[in-house]
């Protein structure tokens, strides 16, 4: 990435290819500049656990954040690609619509909560309630996930290379869960399901998208999903999910 100092950006015009330093700018100032940009590469420095860093992006942006972020980083993301070189607090990529969020460290609870689309990659571990109420987002966790992950998950895929904590997929709707490690316990209405060829193909695509293509054997995974005894599911409505 080629970066120019902020001062070099033309006044009144959206900026591109810029380093933004949260030691000298507020989160609101940084987010406002990024909301105005439609494309470009951006480096965010000194996030220091601040909340709502790069929330609400909507553009073909590549954003790299060097350091640990607080709550709701990259929330509501659309189209942008955000990489966090550090850990993320509660609700990273919550309600993400599209684009890609990649966390190089660990994440706190409720990662990807209610996400509608896009891809969330977590290189480390995720704590409790990862993918809670997800609605179309794909999540790939290279480590393990905590308790109540995929609680009431409606659509999308949660792939976990490590283990899952208590009550995985409690009250799950139509999301698919792929787990390589052990599960401590399954939540209400969540059951293990057959891994058919279509699921292996789908999982392979997800792993490829997360940069794991060829390094992980899809036959090591088990699939979990809804027993459909807890909500008013009817097979003729499957197309709606």
């Amino acid at each position, binding site marked *: 990435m080629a970066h120019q100092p902020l001062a070099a950006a033309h006044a009144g015009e959206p900026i591109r290819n810029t380093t933004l330093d949260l030691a000298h700018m507020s989160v609101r100032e940084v987010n406002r500049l990024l909301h105005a940009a439609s494309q470009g590469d951006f480096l965010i420095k000194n996030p220091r656990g601040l909340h709502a860093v790069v929330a609400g992006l909507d553009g073909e942006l590549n954003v790299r954040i060097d350091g640990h972020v607080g709550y709701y980083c990259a929330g509501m993301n659309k189209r942008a690609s955000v990489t966090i070189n550090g850990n993320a*607090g509660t609700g990273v990529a919550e309600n993400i619509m599209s684009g890609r969020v990649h966390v190089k460290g660990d994440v*706190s609870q409720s990662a990807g909560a209610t996400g509608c689309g896009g891809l969330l990659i977590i290189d480390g571990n995720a704590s409790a309630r990862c993918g809670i109420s997800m609605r179309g987002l794909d999540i790939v966790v290279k480590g393990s996930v905590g308790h109540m992950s995929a609680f009431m998950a409606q659509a999308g895929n949660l792939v976990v290379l490590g283990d899952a904590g208590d009550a995985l997929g409690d009250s799950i709707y139509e999301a698919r869960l792929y787990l390589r490690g052990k599960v401590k316990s399954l939540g209400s209405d969540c059951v293990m399901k057959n891994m058919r060829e279509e699921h292996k193909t789908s999982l392979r695509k997800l792993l490829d998208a997360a940069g794991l293509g060829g390094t992980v054997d899809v036959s090591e995974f088990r699939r979990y999903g809804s027993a459909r005894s807890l909500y008013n599911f009817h097979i003729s409505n499957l197309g709606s999910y």
Partner: protein
Amino acid sequence: MCGIVGLFLKNVALEPELGRLTAAMVRELRDRGPDSAGFAVYGEETSGTTKICAVVREGRLAWPQIAKRLSNATQASVTVKEIENHAVIKTEGDGDAARGWLIDNVPEAIVLSQGLSIEIFKGVGDPGIVVERLNLVGAKGSHAIAHTRMATESAVTIAGSHPFSTGEDTCLVHNGSLSNHNRLRDLLQRHGERFQTANDSEVAAAYLTWRTREGDSLKAALQQALQALDGFYTFVVGTREGFAVLRDPIACKPAVLAETDDWVAFGTEFRALATLPGVANARIWEPEPATVYVWSRA
């Protein structure tokens, strides 16, 4: 809400910096608990001398006279130093007896702590101003725990501010709420515990005092607490030698731990830890639910 910070130094060279580092952590979590704040510092000890910290509920008290009465009542030499609306009383007599006498005889004050090492200070209002006013920045010692409070279970008063301490050199701060504290308070009172508030967190502190008096280690006492306490909690606990963290079985309240060769630090959120020296290379993790973490200088 509520914010907790804790700093346990492993490198003694940092001890003169304890207060400055802790105060910076508190300032980061002001917005999590804007109504009151308090802190415990484990600092200087004089062999055979117990320190008792007390705070006046309202106005001022004639502490030199109270010290004289305490001295007569306990047949021990007593000195007192006033810091703002707090008094730091030093006695060569029994600390628990002195605490009991003060609770019985000086109802205008709240006894905050007693022990060889611990000192607790509290105030109502903006936590940044509270720690400034009570000079946390100048504190030296081995470990410190601080709390910024958003009151839910009892009123916004000095008495309701954390940390809570009922036993020698032990204190507890709490983010959350307990649902069985009334019943447990009755049980603990039958075992001789003295309470000064109607606050749920004081019950958790007294529970640890009771268990350690019965011979449990800090770790064992916290493991018992998992069975005895019902509700939401992240606790950070200090003892003369130790520092501990416990979250409830569903990890309802946030918590981050970080450790380097020089220190162990707790923050309700990472931003509280962001100013610590060497944090960029610290091991950082979220404590697991229902898991007791203990560090000790012994």
